[in-house]
């Protein structure tokens, strides 16, 4: 079937063509500040298919969260603006859609979970009320039906004694439980795409693993497209199908997760992978990428990574390398991709 409804059994007006859910093309985002224009996103392209998990990887300030917010349409404009690009959901450009129509895609079609679930939940209302609100806002359900659905969802995300806890407030839950509630809210309306913005950063390691496996289960169960935004290479390896590495507002490398871990095609990815602490190299000094990411108001000419790159040549300081296919199913934006791959 080439044009199956994105969600089975729903009346969604959106239909995925050949399983293709999201296409982001040439996306630019700028922030107008008192000190100048910060170019947070400079031409990002990626796509997401049904049931696929794309990880967007990058350090702080690389534009990964801004990309997510631009896709969600929750950037504050001003100060932000989107001078170019398109974000197509099932072929419909979200950026040119009237705001009211776009708002109705948030929740039932595309949904999002946040880094810190304590601050992402409203402290004045019980959690059950907040989950139930999703059904009341988008489905017009009455209070008791919405509560029944909320309890079901809380059970689905493995909150013990959901029936009793439905009336409890966010501060009465542990960090991991709060993130589960956030996830329950986000998947309440069975969205086709779930964006998770550093979902495990605020949690400790054992809980991180539980939350990631919950996300993975839900993704498989509902055939969602999952966009996982993180700076944690360890989190990505088990869950993601594909990885997009971002640097200074551009995607510098995009490939299947196995390929990237086995043989990176960009010096930045290579540097990141080498900086993971390894048990078998105990006692040796940890490799690190020297320097700092560039100021987004003064991105260096040529390749933005050139001041920190060990392989940089003159051409890197002048020419911006485009993101091109360097091997089947993998793209890299480096003048010396072949050399990096070969090394």
């Amino acid at each position, binding site marked *: 079937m080439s044009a199956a409804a994105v969600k089975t059994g729903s009346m969604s007006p959106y239909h995925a063509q050949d399983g293709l859910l999201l296409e982001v093309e040439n996306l630019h985002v700028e922030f107008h500040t008192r000190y100048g224009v910060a170019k947070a996103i400079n031409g990002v392209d990626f796509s997401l298919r049904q049931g696929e998990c794309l990880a967007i990887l990058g350090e702080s300030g690389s534009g990964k969260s801004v990309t997510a917010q631009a896709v*969600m349409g*929750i950037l504050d404009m001003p100060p932000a603006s989107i001078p170019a690009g398109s974000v197509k959901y099932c072929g419909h450009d979200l950026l040119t859609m009237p705001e009211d129509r776009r*708002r*109705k*895609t*948030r*929740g*039932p079609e595309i*949904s*999002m979970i*946040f880094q*810190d679930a304590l*601050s*992402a*939940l*409203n*402290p*004045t*209302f*019980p959690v059950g009320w907040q989950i139930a*609100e*999703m059904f009341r*806002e*988008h489905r017009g359900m009455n209070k008791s039906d919405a509560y029944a659905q909320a309890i079901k969802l809380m059970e689905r995300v493995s909150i013990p*004694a959901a*029936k*009793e*806890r439905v*009336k*409890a*407030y966010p*501060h*009465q839950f542990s960090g991991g439980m709060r993130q589960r509630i*956030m996830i329950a*809210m*986000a998947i309440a309306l069975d969205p086709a795409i779930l964006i998770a913005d550093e979902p495990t950063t605020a949690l400790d390691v054992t809980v991180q693993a539980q939350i990631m496996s919950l996300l993975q289960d839900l993704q498989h169960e509902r055939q969602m497209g999952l966009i996982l935004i993180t700076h944690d290479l360890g989190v990505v390896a088990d869950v993601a199908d594909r990885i997009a590495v971002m640097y200074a507002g551009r995607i510098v490398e995009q490939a299947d997760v196995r390929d990237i871990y086995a043989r990176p095609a960009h010096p930045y990815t290579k540097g990141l992978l080498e900086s993971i602490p390894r048990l078998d190299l105990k006692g040796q000094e940890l490799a690190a990428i020297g320097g700092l990411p560039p100021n987004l108001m003064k991105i260096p000419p040529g390749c933005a990574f050139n001041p920190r790159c060990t392989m940089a040549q003159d051409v890197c300081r002048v020419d911006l390398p485009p993101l091109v296919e360097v091997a089947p199913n993998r793209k890299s934006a480096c003048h010396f991709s072949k050399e990096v791959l070969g090394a």
Partner: protein
Amino acid sequence: MTDQTGVIVAEGTTGPEAAETVGQAQSLTQEAWRELRRNPLFVISLILITVFIVMAIFPSLFTNADPNKAILKLSNSAPSKDAWFGRDLQGYDVLARTVYGARASIIVGIMTTLVTGFLGVLIGTIAAYYGGILDTLVMRLTDIFFAIPFLLGGILFMSTFPNDVNSSYWSVVGKVVLALSILGWPSIARLMRGAVLQVKPNDYVQAARALGASPWRIIRSHILPNAMAPVMVVSMINLGAYIAAEASLSFLGIGLVPPAISWGVAISDSLNLIRTAPWILIFPSIFLSLAVLAFIMLGDAVRDAFDPKGR
């Protein structure tokens, strides 16, 4: 003591009931309420306010005398078994006049608080939520209102639209409420704007947007409940101030006028007789002071209870 039993029940039982009790016992409101019950200021002011409100609704519970029955031959008679608070120049029963006077003060206080609260919350929230030029315009408008001294503005309004002999009770009261509301909304609007600006950047507001909540629902469910507390406390304190302002305007002869019975009017009328018949002054003054004090004390107590820093 009730607190202790509450805690024991919560710890001793298991299952749904226990979760329920724990859930409620830990909420901020519950904790504040516990704090309040132990505060003598709160208890006293609450009792006083209850008495005044009952007095405003059922004045006949407090006196059998008719406040509009003038017995001229008993003009200025001292307190007696017949008229506990004495009689004034017209021979009215001072107790009856004072008890019936509560109604005007309470109505003006509550109505003005409701109107300023509604306007202030609405305007302040819209200004802060939408921001930009709208915010600037609204805030400069409040600056203009702040430049007008409260009493002077009241005098100006009331002398521009004076009452006449034929004005009904409600138009007399309504005019005072309107005058006080016009001057009172900017302080609430500014307070509300500040509170909304503080709540707006919170993650849960962003999260609500990301999950498709409409602007109206974001304001109603996420911003208002988290930004209302300061406005509620200040409104309660202001209620006392509005009662005092009404009395001031009435005292100056431009607020409430007969047929409305008001403490301010009574105090004003008593001044010439302060040496010969002080009771005409003393009793309405005491009632007025107690009413104003009660609302201000209640506001203070509630503010302290909700302020975690004060613990």
